[in-house]
C-alpha cells in the first residue's frame, strides 16, 4: 500500500518536533516536508504535492485559512490550534476534525484515520471551501487581503486597494502593489470591507473612496469615475446613488 505523503506546516519548532515524533510511530505516514509559515506552505503544496497536510491555524505573516485561500486544489488537511474561538466555531459548524494543542498521539491516530477516509472521497475541495466561507462569516471587517501572483505571495493592507473588478467567480484587485486575481466573489468583499470607505459603484466595480479624483457624467443615467491613478470606471445609476450617499453630495 502506498504511504500517505504528509507535510507539516507549523511555525513553532517544538510543536513540529512533537508531531514529527507522533507521525514516526504511524506506518501509514511518509513525512515529505516541514514548513515554518504559510508562504513556504503554499509553495511546498504546489511542488511536493502532499496527500495530507497538518496545518496550524495561528501562524505569523498569514494564517492557515489565508494560506488555503491561495491553494486551488487543496490536499486533505488536518487543522490544529492552541486557541482560536473563530476557527473552532467554523470547525464545529462544518463537522471538521481538528486537533487542540497539546494533543496526545491517540488523537493524531484518530485524525489520520478520518483523513484516510477523506482521501478516498472526492468532496475534499468543496468541504474546505465551505469551511473557509464559514470562517469568513465569523471574521468581520478585513484589514488585509492575501494574494498570489505566480510564486510570489503578497499581503495587501486594504488601504492600498484602489478598486476591485469582478470577473464571474473571482475578482481582480487593483492596488499600489499591482493587480492580482483572487478567488473570492465581489459579494465577499462588499460584506467584509468597511462600507463607508468602499462603495459598489457598478455591478463590476467596488471603489475605495480615498482614490476618487473626479466624477463625470457622460449619458443620462451613467457616469464615470476617474481615479487618482488615471483609471476610468463606469458608474451605474444605482452606483451613483450609493456614491452620493457615501460622499454626502
Amino acid at each position, binding site marked *: 500500500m502506498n504511504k500517505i505523503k504528509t507535510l507539516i506546516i507549523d511555525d513553532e519548532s517544538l510543536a513540529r518536533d*512533537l508531531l514529527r515524533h507522533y507521525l514516526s510511530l504511524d506506518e501509514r505516514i511518509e513525512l515529505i516536508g516541514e514548513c515554518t509559515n504559510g508562504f513556504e506552505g503554499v509553495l511546498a503544496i504546489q511542488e511536493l504535492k502532499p496527500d495530507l497536510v497538518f496545518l496550524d491555524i495561528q501562524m505569523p505573516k498569514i494564517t492557515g485559512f489565508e494560506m488555503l485561500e491561495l491553494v486551488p486544489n487543496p490536499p486533505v488537511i488536518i487543522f490544529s490550534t492552541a486557541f482560536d474561538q473563530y476557527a473552532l466555531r467554523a470547525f464545529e459548524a462544518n463537522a471538521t476534525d481538528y486537533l487542540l*494543542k497539546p494533543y496526545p498521539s491517540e488523537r493524531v491516530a484518530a485524525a489520520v484515520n478520518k483523513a484516510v477516509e477523506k482521501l478516498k472521497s472526492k468532496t475534499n475541495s468543496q468541504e474546505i471551501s465551505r469551511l473557509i466561507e464559514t470562517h469568513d462569516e465569523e471574521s468581520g471587517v478585513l*484589514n488585509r487581503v492575501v494574494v498570489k501572483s505566480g510564486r510570489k505571495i503578497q499581503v495587501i493592507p486594504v488601504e492600498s486597494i484602489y478598486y476591485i473588478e469582478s470577473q464571474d467567480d473571482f475578482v481582480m484587485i487593483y492596488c499600489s502593489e499591482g493587480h492580482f486575481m483572487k478567488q473570492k466573489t465581489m459579494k465577499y468583499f462588499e460584506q467584509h470591507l468597511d462600507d463607508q470607505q468602499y462603495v459598489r459603484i457598478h455591478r463590476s466595480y467596488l471603489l475605495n473612496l480615498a482614490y476618487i479624483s473626479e466624477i463625470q457624467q457622460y449619458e443620462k443615467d451613467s457616469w464615470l469615475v476617474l481615479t487618482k491613478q488615471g483609471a476610468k470606471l463606469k458608474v451605474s445609476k444605482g452606483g451613483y446613488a450609493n456614491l452620493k450617499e457615501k460622499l454626502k453630495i
Partner: protein
Amino acid sequence: MAPILTFSCFIIKLVEHPVTKNKISILIYWLFPVTIGLSQAIYNSYYHILPVSVSFVDGLIFGGVLGILGIAVWYVVRYNDPEKSAPVQMLASHVAASLVFTAMWMIASGILVKTMINHLAYGEYLNSQLTVRIIGGLLCYALIVSIYYIYVYSQHNREKQLKEAEWQHQIRQAQLDALKSQINPHFLFNSLNSIASLTLTDSGKAHHMVIALSDFMRYSLRNHQDDLVTLEVELRNIGLYLQIEKIRFGDRLGYHFDIGDGCNTHLIPNLILQPIFENAIKYGVYESSTPVEILLKARKMEDCMEIEVINDFDPESVPRKGEGVGLTNINERLRIIYGSSRLLTAELGDNKFTVKMVIPDNN
C-alpha cells in the same frame, strides 16, 4: 352591563393595573364586591326586609358599582406612591378620594336602582340605610386602598430583589472577565504544548518550563487590580514570561532590562507591564523573520518614574487585526488609580515601537 365591564377591563389593561393583569386576578377581585352585594341581598331577602327580586337588584347594583369604582381607586394609589409622596399629601389625597368615591357610589347606584326598582317601600328603605351605606362606602374604600398598597409594596420588593440579583450577576461577570483577561490562552496552551514536546527531547528544560509557567500563572491570578508592587517584583514576573517565550522563539527573541537608580523599589500597579510585552511579542517577535530585541528602560524622575518599552518590528508586516484592547486597558487602569489619562503614550518609529509609561510617586 357585561359588555361595559369587559370593555372597561380592556381599556384598563392597556394601562398596567393589578386587577386586570390576568383572568385570575379579575375573578378574585370581583369576588369582593359581588360578595358584599350578594350578602346584603341575601340578608334583606332572608329577613323579609325587601322582596327577593328587589333585594337582589339592590345588592347587585350597589355591589357592581362598588366594583367598578374600586378599579378606578387604583389610580389614586398609583398617584400616591409611598416611595415618592409625602405622608401628609397621601393622607389628604385619600381622605378626599374616599369622599368622592363614596359620593359617586351612592349617587350612581341610587340613579340606577331608581330606574330598575319600582317598589313602594324601597325608597324609604334606601333613606334609612343612608348613614350605614355611607360608612360602609368609606370602609370599603379603606379596604380597597389597603389591598392595593400591599400589592404596591410587594411589587417594590420584587423589583429590589431583581435589581439585587442583577447587580450580583454583573459583579461576578466582571470578576470573571478580569480573571480571564489575565490568562492569555494562546500563551498558556502553546507553552503547554512546548512542554509536552520538551519531555521527549530535553526533560531538564521541560522541568524548568513547568515551574516557570506555574510561577507565572500564580502571579497572574492575583486579581486585585489596584495592588501595587515594586518594579523589581513586577520585572521578576515579566522575566518569567520572557523566559517561557524564549523557549518558544529561541534566538528570535532577545530582551534587556536597563534599570536606573531608585527604580527597583518604586511602586507600580501589578501586571501593568504584561500587555505591553505581550504586544511586543505578538506584533514584533512573532511577525518578524529576523531576531527582535525588547528593551525596557526605567528612570527615576523628580516625582515619578518613567518606563519605556522599545521593540523592533518588521515594517513590511501587516498584522492581523487584533483585539487591541491591551494598551487601552492599561490607560484606563492608570486613569482609575492615578487620575490621569495621559500617563501612557505609544509611538511607531521606522522599525521601532515605543511605549512610554509615567508612574507617579506613591504618596
